[in-house]
């Protein structure tokens, strides 16, 4: 069995992991970046819309172009990249079990940054397993990466940013979006994304959910129903839509398996998608030397993931003796300011509060005498 040693091992090559790897390597650390896919970039590679925010967050640049920039940064910084490498376990003494190009290998690292991302939530209803019912991310992968249209008549369940963006992208790819169905009484995502669909005449069914999906061997019809105040369906309000594809955009949950294995303390934060590891402002968990960044710390956006990645990469490198003093402090303060900006305003209130609880939990845990 192949054994590898590195100073910093980063698990996950999405926006958080790429940013962490580049920063740690730039600071002088020897970095190994591990990603299960053949192509790095995480979900950025299928984002064909322009990002917003400030210049620091690549405003006006499309997601897949941001991925290219981050990949160039990683190469320029001298990071060793292991793609097609699945990190399946994190064992004591910071040893990662990895299957790299089909062969088992053991990676020993002095510091570990976990940036595994998130996965889509599933919804169960009669017919939810029929071919043609799929994650919104699956439809996006098929259309934008594999360049194959997953269907011609689409119903989107969920009006968060994923639901809105994927709906529009499927239209750009040539499909009809028959309806966007949303359980809440308001659209979940940004107005600018919703407006594109509204202008194109896509009907929104608010306070509605899917009652059943049906078809002979594959999806042909989606029955939706209105829901009342307590999320109970209202009999007599059913409506049947003809569709060959039903996309589920019901949120994401953090992929925390490796953080659990490492023994990190966790807390439950619904706004972040479930159980998330406690971490301090430097992104270190309650297990010394194990850092987290991006959606694994709570589902937010790619912009947040990049900033958290930078923070984790700089901090991991610092703890190994790379970089110190006023310059590093100033850089971290700038990152923190940008993170605060991303969680500013009314929309960010719940995430601000959740992040505060997450860092407080890490502090409590340390005072209380280490990890559970």
């Amino acid at each position, binding site marked *: 069995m192949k054994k590898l040693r590195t100073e910093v091992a980063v698990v996950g090559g999405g926006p958080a992991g790429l940013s962490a790897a580049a920063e740690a390597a730039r600071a002088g650390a020897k970095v190994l970046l591990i990603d299960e896919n053949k192509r790095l970039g995480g979900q950025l590679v299928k984002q064909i819309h322009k990002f917003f925010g400030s210049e620091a967050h690549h405003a006006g640049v499309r997601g897949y172009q941001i991925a290219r920039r981050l990949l160039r940064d990683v190469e320029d910084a001298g990071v060793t990249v292991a793609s097609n490498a699945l990190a399946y376990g994190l064992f004591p003494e910071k040893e990662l079990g990895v299957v790299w190009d089909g062969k088992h290998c053991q990676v020993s690292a002095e510091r570990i940054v976990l940036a595994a991302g998130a996965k889509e939530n599933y919804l169960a209803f009669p017919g939810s397993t029929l*071919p043609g019912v799929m994650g919104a*991310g*699956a439809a996006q992968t*098929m259309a934008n990466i*594999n*360049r194959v249209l997953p269907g011609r008549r689409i119903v989107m369940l969920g009006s968060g940013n994923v639901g809105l963006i994927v709906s529009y992208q499927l239209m*750009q790819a040539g499909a009809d979006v028959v309806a966007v169905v949303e359980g809440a009484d308001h659209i979940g995502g940004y107005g600018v994304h919703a407006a594109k669909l509204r202008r194109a005449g896509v009907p929104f069914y608010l306070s509605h959910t899917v009652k059943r999906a049906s078809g002979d*061997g*594959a999806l042909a019809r989606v029955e939706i129903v209105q829901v009342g105040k307590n999320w109970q369906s209202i009999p007599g309000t059913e409506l049947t839509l003809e569709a060959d594809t039903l996309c589920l955009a019901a949120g994401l949950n953090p992929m925390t398996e490796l953080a659990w294995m490492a023994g990190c303390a966790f807390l439950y934060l619904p706004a972040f998608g479930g159980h998330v590891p406690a971490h301090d402002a430097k992104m270190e968990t309650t297990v010394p030397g194990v850092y987290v960044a991006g959606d694994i710390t709570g589902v937010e956006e790619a912009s947040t993931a990049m900033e958290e990645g930078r923070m984790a990469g700089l901090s991991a490198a610092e703890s190994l003796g790379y970089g110190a003093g006023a310059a590093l402090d100033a850089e971290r303060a700038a990152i923190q300011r940008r993170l605060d900006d991303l969680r500013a305003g009314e929309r960010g209130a719940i995430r601000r509060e959740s992040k505060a609880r997450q860092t407080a939990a890490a502090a409590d845990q340390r005072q209380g005498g280490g990890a559970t």
Partner: protein
Amino acid sequence: MRITDHPILGPAEAGREITIFYNGAPVPAVEGEPIAAALMNAGVRSFRRTAKRDEPRGIFCAIGRCTDCMMIVNGKPNVRTCITGAADGMRVETQYGYGGRKEQA
């Protein structure tokens, strides 16, 4: 249906055109694309059938996580076709139950 031209991404990259075999029938594919993409383009929706209720399953996650797209590829069962590249002459079969062919289900 292939998205040959795209308003943002432009024309699709031209790859080598190959043929794979779905339950014995020839299906056009592009070398290296996921098997599932070639099948979806050909109109295939059901990829495998479940063990207990013999229900159809199709593409669900498309990133190798959910296992709904597992098929028998060149005789090997439980291959995730959404992340396995197509190669010329590949034999792809509907998988029944935990990895068998229909007669074994």
